């Protein structure tokens, strides 16, 4: 569940999709690889979403996030111009550094074409100016991003098989069956590469998580925001938890999954996941208040278990209002026996869809 993609859809004026017939997400469609690593241009939106923890040679812990989005605006496909915006690519990257106490981030956006911006089908190969995310023949994924204040050049090596979310990759997002996406994850990615900060290059290692999701309709009209949590457990397990909130703060939908180290898979439904607000942090920048230390009550095998979440630091808020974007919180978090990323949206103002 990725906020930026939605916002980005909005930005492109995709509010009138009537003219463009998009592919519909249906259950029972088997995912095939490596084809499904590649783009699905007939769907409205899609993302390659990497989050994770890095450790520098000096032993610092950092959070990082590298995301590529693809969206198909509702345009007249008859336009033969090479500039016709058939697909728009957008990429976003951020570093959570406790030493700076806030996020460093960078982004790129372009319409597909001219070899400057391409999301290939068949396998994972996304190019956006000098930014890249490419899956190699050996299965490792190379990604490179470059911002004003930092640059990342990372190799992500899978250590486990693909994790299909929901029903074999069909993931419900709301009460209506149409409010769903094709969704798989690559947890427990082993990370090695370099980070450049302030002109200084350093080697980094770490663990990451990749979400792959594509859809044409995601959100229920009652939704105002959501919380999403992806955790690499120290024992090799992978825990996904999310809820879609309504205006009263209640859940419109919730769900997730747990894949244990031995590969046993548990799919979590709306009744299995409850987000309980814990300590709150108020952003002086935006005035928004975030439950940065939530406790998630997960019912596993009939037994509720509380998972307290601790942020790497409080101010992992992103304010993109100046560029017409939203205000949200996305950052590295710890839980007992695991680490991962938490995304919280709709806390400054309701997301208007």
């Amino acid at each position, binding site marked *: 569940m990725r906020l930026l993609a939605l916002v980005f859809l*909005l*930005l*492109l*004026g995709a*509010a009138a999709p009537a003219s463009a017939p998009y592919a519909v997400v249906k259950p029972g469609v088997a995912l095939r690889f490596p084809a499904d690593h590649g783009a699905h241009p007939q769907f409205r939106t899609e993302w390659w979403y990497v989050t994770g923890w890095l450790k520098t040679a000096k032993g610092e812990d950092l959070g990082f996030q590298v995301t590529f989005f693809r969206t198909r*605006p509702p*345009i*007249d496909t008859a*336009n*033969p*111009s*090479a*500039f*016709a*915006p058939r697909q*728009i690519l957008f990429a976003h990257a951020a570093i959570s550094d406790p030493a700076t106490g806030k996020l460093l981030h960078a982004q790129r*956006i*372009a*319409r597909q074409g*001219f*070899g*400057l911006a391409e999301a290939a089908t068949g396998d994972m190969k996304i190019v956006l*100016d000098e930014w890249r995310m490419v899956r190699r023949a050996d299965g490792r994924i190379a990604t490179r991003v470059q911002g*004003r204040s930092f640059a990342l050049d990372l190799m992500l090596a899978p250590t486990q098989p693909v994790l299909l979310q929901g029903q074999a990759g069909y993931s419900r997002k709301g009460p209506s069956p149409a409010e769903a996406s094709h969704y798989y994850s690559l947890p427990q990615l082993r990370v090695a590469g370099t980070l450049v900060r302030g002109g200084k290059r350093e080697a980094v290692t770490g663990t990451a998580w990749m979400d792959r999701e594509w859809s044409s309709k995601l959100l229920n009209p009652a939704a105002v925001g959501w919380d999403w949590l992806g955790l690499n457990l120290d024992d090799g397990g992978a825990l996904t938890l999310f809820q879609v909130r309504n205006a009263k703060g209640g859940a419109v939908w919730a769900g997730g999954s747990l894949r244990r180290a031995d590969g046993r898979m548990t799919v979590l439904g709306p009744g299995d996941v409850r987000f309980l607000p814990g300590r709150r942090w108020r952003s002086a920048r935006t005035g928004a208040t975030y439950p940065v230390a939530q406790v998630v009550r997960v019912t596993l095998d009939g037994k509720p278990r509380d998972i307290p979440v601790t942020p790497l630091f409080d101010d992992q808020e992103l304010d993109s209002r100046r560029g*017409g974007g939203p205000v949200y919180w996305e950052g590295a978090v710890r839980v007992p026996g695991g680490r991962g990323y938490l995304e919280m949206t709709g806390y400054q103002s309701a997301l*208007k869809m």
Partner: protein
Amino acid sequence: MAAEASAALPPLAARWLVLGEWRAHPARVIIGALAIAVGVALGFAVHLVNRTALDSFARAISTVNGAADLQVHGLTPAGFDEALYPKVARLPGVAGASPVVSLAARHSDAGTPEFNAGNGRQRITLLGLDGLRAASVTPSLIGMPINGPGRASGLDPDAIFLSRAALAATGKKPGDRLSLTAAGHSRSFTIAGVLAGAGEDQALAVIDIADAQWRFGQLGRLQRIDVRLAEGADAARVEQALAAILPHDAEIVTARSEAQRSDSLSRAYRVNLEMLAMVALLTGGFLVFSAQSLSVARRSGQFALLRVLGLRRRALVAQVVAEGAVLGLIGAGVGIALGYGLADLAVTLLGGDLGGGYFPEGTVHLRFPPLAALAFAALGVGVAVLSSLLPARAAARAQPAVALKASGDATDPRRQPRSWPGLALLAAGGLAALGPPLFGLPLLGYAAMALLLAGGVAAMPFLARMLLAPLLRAEWPPAIDLALKRLWGAPGAAAVALCGIVASTSLMVAMAVMVTSFRGSVDDWLVQILPSDIYLHVEGAEAGGLDMAAQARLAATPGVGSVHFVRQMPLRLSPELPAVILSGQPVNAADPGARMPLLGDPVPVPAGETAAYISEPMGWLYGLAPGDHVTLPLASGKQRVFVAGVWRDYARQFGAITLDTADFERLTGDASKTEAAIDVAPGASVSAVTDALRARLPDQLRSQTMFAQPRQMRAMALRIFDRSFAVTYALEAIAIIIGLIGVATTFSAQTLARAREFGMLRHIGVKRRQIMMMLATEGALLGLVGVIAGLGLGLMMAQVLIHVVNPQSFHWTMDTRLPWGLFAGLVAALVSAAAGTAVLAGRKALSADAVRAVRQDW
């Protein structure tokens, strides 16, 4: 004692003497200061307007360009292949590249266009942008959606964003529909918002690039790529790398080269106007000179006394010069204020280019530049000081003992005035006129005019004698005889009175002859280039006009005898110079001069070469002559053509090239046409044929097509001509008025100074009427001498304007024509003004008691 050491007059003494003199003759002071004020005001106003216009023009350019670091421009409106875009985007050092489709558009609600090239109100620059790229390269070109941020980014093919100027020009508001026509295509949009960053001046519309390519026939083409350099990138290195991948129909444009081009666009015109304004200041200088000369002559006794009482020579010079300086200071102060007001008025009434037609779009905001104001004020003071220096030195050279004894002017009629200084200056002026342009401007030409003027004035005493000598031999009634003898005997005094009149007359004559010659030549040229009955022009069709089918349909219109289709498109040959106009039209190879005003005979075209006929300015600007070759950067590649002839052209100051239609189509691959010359069949009605042609036009072109008949076009061209010279006429008139005021003050001063002489004449029995008669004769004679000298000098200066200044500034030549009517009027006006003033002043001088006048010492 400080006064002991310094050469200057002690301040108290200076104050007593200067203020005393001014209290006694306030009118003279006021007029002297006023002359300087008018000169400074004109110079400053013209400068201010020019500067303001240039500023707003530069602002307009940077508005359209959105302040990119670097740009790639197409050399023609057809642009270049879009394949260049990814290559540019990938160059090292390029942080962002934004592809742009740029078209000249008209909004369709503007009604049928007038046949008037200067009509910029309906014009809008239509930009097709990739908003996602432009956001980081040229953010000022990104529209603010009216529904607030978050809505519509410009990907919406129906959305158009307008600058405030475009909103004003179309009279629309956000949410309205707007129909635009460009490159022969029309399309309507919803105004989605405002280009908030685009300033107030430029009529600008932004749509999505894909739609711009598709809907306006620009598929695969770009007119521009805006480039943002990476932080710390070496601009020169990026330019170099860019140049290496550039196709032949594109060029690199930087803010620097753009500024240079906009400067060269109007530079000659601006310099000419400023020079003209300087002429007014110069005339003011002559006025100060004659006023100071008179004042010094009148005060010669006083100065002698001061010398006897112990005033040193230098102190005397310093006093007279200080008087001039104070006069100049007052004049300059008033002049700066006046100039600002004048500029404000001119901008309001005539527009930013003073009617020159160089800055067709945008509004002008006047600002006060303190440095320029200071410079012009200094110029005014400088002129006043210089004009006082000569009389001051004359005063200091006088023998005090002699001056104390003698009263009035102590001239000796036997002394011959020197002729060589004037002749030397005239000769120097002649030499300067032969010089080449400096910095692309006819600076030596202007120097020649200044030298001729100075020479003419310096030669006046000598000339006045020469002109009067034949009159002396005849028998005259006593009053006229007295007048003649006095003028002949005191040529120096006459020259002082004459210098203002000679200066202003000669300048006026020079300008008038030039303008008359120019206008006449333009008129002849118009007759020559407009031989057909009907002319058709598709407005804003640089990137596409009438296609083959439309041409065939038009040619088949009943009543049409023959049609000559013409395709015109701008073509940029040099990054520093504005584009030339490349036109394809039927050229009769056997007789190219048939439909072209050729200068000289055409050169035979070598076999296998393509004949091109260049306009006269083109030859000057690019150093081309018949027999040379010129390379044209066209879409089909670099094409070398042979210059077969040169034709006269007053319309396109920056050059034009004509190819035969067949050659044009072969080289450009463009068979569409933008204009046509139509001869109606015998017996057919011109208006009926025009209507029929209009009906046969393609729908989308009808609203942007204009029809005209040669008579209308000539009238319009001459109207534009007169409008662009309106300021010239005004400046001339002011110079003449200053000259007349000078004559009036000088005459009255000289006449009043002779009160004693009149008293004596009355004593010895000369009748009052006879004295008046004598004065009128003197005045008329002096006026006549001045006008004759001014005419002669003016004709010389006109030749410099016609044969040096104009070709060097605007790169065209003309045939001399003389405005006889104006000459006659000038002679009558100046002679009667001179005689009239003399009589008026004489009446005043004679009203004083004659007996007392004789006894009076001063």
